[in-house]
């Protein structure tokens, strides 16, 4: 990564950072909501377990975002994950998170 950094390279790095931060937090939040509502545990236990795990989820997503071969590929993987979680949430609760599309 050393040497001359072209504008395209800089943009690609900036894109990864935005994708990793936004995507990582968004996917971790979606997973937390889904698990909080669906884990077969008492309500307080489900929320606690989901929240405790959420930070590991976020780290995993960030690593994937930076390890993917290209920015497009990283965006596709994270977008797919987010979509799958949102669909699962829709199935579990009958509404999309945060009121989208309901």
């Amino acid at each position, binding site marked *: 990564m050393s040497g001359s950094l072209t504008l395209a390279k800089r943009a690609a790095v900036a894109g990864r950072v935005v994708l990793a931060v936004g995507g990582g937090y968004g996917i971790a939040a979606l997973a937390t909501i889904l698990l909080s509502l669906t884990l077969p545990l008492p309500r307080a*236990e489900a929320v606690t377990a989901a929240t405790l795990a959420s930070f590991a989820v976020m780290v995993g997503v960030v690593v994937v975002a930076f390890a993917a071969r290209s920015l497009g590929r990283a965006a596709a993987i994270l977008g797919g994950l987010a979509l799958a979680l949102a669909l699962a949430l829709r199935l579990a609760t009958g509404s999309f998170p945060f009121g989208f599309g309901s």
Partner: protein
Amino acid sequence: MKQGFRQSMAWLHTWSGLVVGWVLFAVFVTGTATYYRAEISRWMQPELHRQAAIGPEALAHAADLAVAHLEAHAGEARSWFIGLPTPERPLVELFWRTRPGTAPDHVLLDPRTGAPAAMRATKGGDLLYRFHFELHLPPLWGRWIVGICAMVMLVALVSGIVTHRRIFSDFFTLRRDKAAQRGWLDAHNVSGVLALPFHLMITYTGVVTLAIMYMPWGVTAAYKGDQFAYFAETGQITKARPAAGQPGTLAPVGPMVARALATIPEPLERLVVSNPRDANSTVVAVFEEPHGLSHEHPQVAFAGTSGTIVEVLSGGLRPAAKTFTTMVGLHEAHFAGPALRVLFFLCGLMGCAMVGSGLVLWTVARLPKAGTATGFGWRLVHTLNIGTIAGLPGGIAAYLIANRLLPADLAGRSEREVQAFFGVWILVAAAGAAANAWLAPRQAWRGALAAVAGLFAAAVLADLVLARALWDDPAWFLGFDAVLLAVAAGFALISRKVDRFRAPGRARREAAAAVGTPRMERA
């Protein structure tokens, strides 16, 4: 990043670590010091004399005096926090907040008379404790910044582990006889790998302590955002009792303290009084954690106007909640006895060394060739490195010195101590930045680190000269001073090593044969 997994992770490790390294260093240093928060507070108030045991009657009496003071001075506050005296800290400590968003009021009382305690005003170890997770910023800002940096640290740890081909042999590798960069890399690896379980544990559990703030969406979805309801349902706090809106009179708290002590066998730590002038006021007695890893305070809640028990919390958490409180307990290490606490402290120092050596490694690996000017980025990183790695410890030493030098009855005394802390920190950082103009990097490091060593030695001197007459236990204070001297000696040693380091003949010849001697080697 069209490279292998390992290369992309090495890149991620370098840059994520650099971006948050300075904040992380400050968080590690103040967090490590916080293992001895109570000791730092005791050293900073040498007028305080410890007592033998404090009986139930004395505790009940102290609580009554505390409430009398609060009724006179804090009648409008929605909550009162009453820290009760212990043998180590025989003081009544009161906190209250009259309006949300304002700084809480704080006063220390003599537990026998109820008069303000006659001792120097200081924030003691609490300054470093709060800095550890709030950076002396408005709490919301500070906590978010520290949380984001902690998440980046987790990413840096995971990517750092991936980057290592030979994690086991790194345990035993410290090649000081090779080139400078190799030595710094090994130092970074040894401090990172040797205490790796600690680093992973402390970072994850640190984020977990504020988990519901950082990741509130589970509570939002399942409790419509009512965090009090969530915490009460997990069994960590007593159920909230909303204000009735009718005036009421608080019953004497002395008998409540006596009943609480009869209910729970642990030492009583504090009382929390909610809506003290309401018909539905609540008094919660909070006890110290029982022996064990879990951060789990037994609690007894009383109806404030009648003094009857409405709820008792004592153990019995379910698995996920127990996991949460155990993670918080691991982070705080309140369970650790003296020997284990030393180990936690040493692991914390390893964390400081890991972050610090990583920051230095970035600059050493990018040293400009002889004869070429340093770039702006390199100078910025180098300046911030000196400003943080030498500046913060220098500020801590100045905080201790100010505690001994400032007159005991000075107005705004504890704020002056905090100003000394930040003032000297900024001074060291500014001197390091100015030194860039005419000193080689190595000389700037040597001077800054020697200055820090001198400041810690001066703190010991100030204590011996100005406070010796006040010590209630000379051996204890001499022990604390010995630790400060050890810190001073550590900085002096590093300063000397930076000064004396010569690359061995082979590395020097190779470097000379290539493109002349790099600047750091030459100094």
